[in-house]
């Protein structure tokens, strides 16, 4: 097997062969696969324990004896965790938990420097050097605003799931689950299994839309079976499944007491006069996931617009980004779920090995072919899923002028419309400059999609002059103390 000169460089503690950012399903699969093939890997993750958002588990001592009961595919995770532990013990993987990478920087010699904050207070700094970079940065939940969504008792669907997985706390006793996307079914099931009553699951799209791509469904019988299984389980748990409906208002003085559910048309415009109240003490709402692209954008990776309305890292078959030396896997390359993330993580690691050594052993090559086939099949399904659940253009009609769109800066839909109609804003950046929408704590992660859609309705997606109309740029992927930045300054 020919080895590149690069690999013959002595292993040194200061520069890993591969840095993997994110220890969710994709990052874990990538790190252990790369280590299996003899690469020295550094694995950075913002969480204390590996698993990411998906395999989130309670901290020890909370008395959860069967964390796997809340997860799908727990044995896979258990196996990956065991391999991670073995590689960590042998020194093949340096696992850096509680390391939040705030930027990646290319050094003069082509190596990557990953700048992270760590420590209990996030006030320690850490810099890691690696020859190659694999981004498995995952996703965050996509939200759409609606009247009343700021009332206590309204929680994000993924947040409700996370609360269950990590602390086993329920956001209420009688919880309506609403929004769009397959996550809602899983969330509703978890909530009922944890003892809550879920009177209704409100889905803005129609599941029937999946039938428009019969070949994709036929190629993914497992996905169909899962949908049917979830549907049956939900019906069994007394959850009414209402499609082509949306929560258009929330009632209650100090917290949620009821929600109004209205019919929506194909474009998600609420149909007047169809509103019906459902009593509840909590609402778990989500509209799918959006890739976390800060580091990919910082590294200069190209992005693409996806069928679900989000942006994702542009990848080739080998999971290479447009920047040499940078790979990505999992949700960062487009929302696709845990099975795809595991597949892509492994495939990306094999791709790294292939590029380093000019090839891989026969068994690994066969494995890569099988993974490629799975990836193609799963990506086709996720594209279909994204298109089915992409918010229809009419969703903004359920907003009133005083509905807050950006909660951090308290910017209402009315102010955003004024910025567009009277001041000529037609893109996210200009709306942000004129209203401060997206300038607060979450840096637009919550409101970014909604603001973009509201602005696009006026400017038809034109770029803001200097910046092309791509994903939001956040050069700092997380807040960093001034003193931490100052420590990096070279003496003048």
């Amino acid at each position: 097997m020919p080895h590149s000169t690069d690999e013959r460089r002595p292993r040194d503690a200061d520069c890993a062969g591969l840095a993997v950012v994110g220890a969710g399903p994709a990052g874990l699969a990538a790190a252990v696969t790369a280590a299996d093939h003899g690469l020295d890997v550094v694995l950075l993750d913002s969480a204390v324990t590996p698993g990411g958002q998906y395999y989130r588990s309670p901290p020890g001592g909370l008395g959860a004896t069967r964390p796997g009961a809340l997860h799908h595919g727990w044995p896979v995770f258990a196996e990956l965790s065991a391999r991670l532990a073995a590689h960590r013990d042998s020194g093949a993987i340096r696992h850096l938990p509680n390391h939040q990478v705030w930027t990646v920087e290319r050094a003069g010699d082509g190596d990557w420097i990953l700048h992270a904050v760590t420590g209990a207070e996030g006030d320690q700094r850490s810099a890691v050097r690696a020859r190659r970079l694999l981004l498995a940065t995952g996703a965050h939940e996509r939200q759409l605003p609606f009247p009343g969504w700021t009332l206590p008792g309204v929680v994000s669907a993924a947040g409700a799931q996370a609360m269950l997985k990590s602390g086993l706390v329920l956001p209420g006793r009688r919880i309506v689950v609403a929004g769009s996307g397959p996550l809602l079914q899983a969330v509703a099931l978890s909530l009922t299994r944890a003892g809550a009553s879920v009177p209704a699951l409100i889905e803005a799209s129609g599941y029937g839309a999946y039938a428009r791509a019969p070949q994709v469904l036929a190629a993914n019988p497992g996905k169909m079976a899962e949908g049917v299984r979830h549907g049956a389980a939900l019906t069994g748990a007394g959850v009414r499944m209402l499609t082509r409906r949306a929560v258009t208002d929330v009632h209650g003085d100090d917290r949620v007491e009821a929600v109004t559910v209205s019919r929506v048309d194909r474009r998600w415009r609420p149909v007047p006069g169809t509103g019906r109240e459902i009593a509840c003490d909590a609402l778990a709402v989500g509209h799918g996931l959006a890739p976390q692209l800060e580091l990919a954008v910082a590294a200069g990776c190209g992005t693409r617009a996806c069928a679900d309305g989000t942006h994702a890292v542009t990848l080739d078959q080998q999971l290479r980004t447009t920047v040499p030396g940078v790979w990505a896997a999992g949700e960062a390359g487009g929302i696709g779920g845990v099975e795809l993330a595991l597949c892509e993580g492994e495939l990306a690691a094999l791709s790294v090995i292939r590029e380093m050594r000019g090839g891989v052993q026969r068994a690994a090559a066969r494995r890569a072919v099988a993974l490629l086939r799975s990836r193609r099949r799963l990506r086709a399904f996720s594209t279909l899923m994204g298109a089915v659940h992409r918010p229809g253009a009419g969703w903004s009609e359920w907003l009133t002028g005083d509905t807050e769109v950006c909660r951090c800066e308290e910017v209402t839909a009315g102010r955003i419309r004024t910025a567009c109609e009277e001041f000529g804003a037609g893109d996210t950046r200009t709306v942000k400059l004129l209203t401060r929408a997206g300038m607060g704590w979450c840096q637009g992660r919550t409101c970014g999609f909604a603001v973009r859609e509201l602005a696009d309705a006026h400017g038809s997606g034109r770029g803001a002059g200097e910046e092309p109309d791509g994903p939001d740029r956040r050069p700092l992927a997380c807040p960093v103390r001034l003193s931490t930045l100052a420590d990096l300054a070279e003496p003048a």
Partner: protein
Amino acid sequence: MRQPLDVVIVGAGVVGAACAYYASRSGLSVAVVDRGSVAGGTTGAGEGNLLVSDKLPGPELELALLSASLWRELSEELSSDIEYEIKGGLVVAASEESLTTLSTTAATQRGAGVEAYHVTSDRLRDAEPHLAPHLAGGCHYPQDAQVQPALAAAELLREAGRSGARLCPGEEVVGILRHRDGAVRGVRTARSELRAPVVVNAAGTWGGDLAAMAGVDLPVLPRRGFVLVTEPLPRLIRHKVYAAEYVSDVSSGSAALQTSPVVEGTPSGPVLIGASRERVGFDRTLSVPAIARLAAQAAALFPVLADVRVMRAYHGFRPYLPDHLPAIGPDPRVPGLFHACGHEGAGIGLAPATGLLIADAIAGRQPVLDPGPFAPDRFDTTCHVT
């Protein structure tokens, strides 16, 4: 049928907006085109400084003093809040040596009509309680002010719209229309043609490209700057505070990275930290060395900021001309072409005076100050053959 246009302004940044405001107010029929939205280029990346303190006596200072009084008028005339605040500037010197230089500068500025007051070392913290101890002294410039630049540009354009100006965002100019004799007759955009006998180049950092479309050279280059934005804080910093070295960095011609601390609070809470300067083309990658130096210098000036979290960082490209003066006025090489660009880091401050000069020049009125030093063809060696 729309009224025929008198003027097409290319660029909806603050300079283009001010040109549109003064031109439409003097009765001209105006259209503003921009490939993006309002304030999409350098205006949106600016801190909104209206400074006289950082300028040495000369044509730029005259322009800045005129602008300072125009901004004061505008803050009363414009119908919505542009966060105008005469907060004053405080320039601080760390060493006796730089204090001496600062005091000499201030003396010459006073001769040119700038208000500048010496602040002794022991009084600095009366002005700014959180300043580091042991600074040598400083100078207070009460005329320095601030606006929120994107709001200011948008409001100027809205007001121009009320006088009949048309705003055409999302339209990229792809060519300048010319008569057979060379005079301009409008612009061609990706979508349409806008015909007018006057075209104003207010394309900022991209002004050189627009000049090239008209066949003339205007050497505008991007000079990148980063700004750090902290989490929202109660008002800790009252003035725009910067180090005396800032003035020499501004006037330097070097392409290498220069940083000098410029720190100020904002009405919304976050503290803004600048200012870096480097000529690296339109490179949009975050420079860790640049922001690290900004952070270190800001923390040295205001130790209280050390534990504060930086929420975001952004960059902008200042439109730089080799002599640090803007190009304002008609281009003798192309009849009907006017330039209003190349203001480097002072575009927000200099915008109203620029707009007024342009409107007067188009209308053939006597200029309020000598526009000679801003002649757009001053870099064109081929024009000055004797």
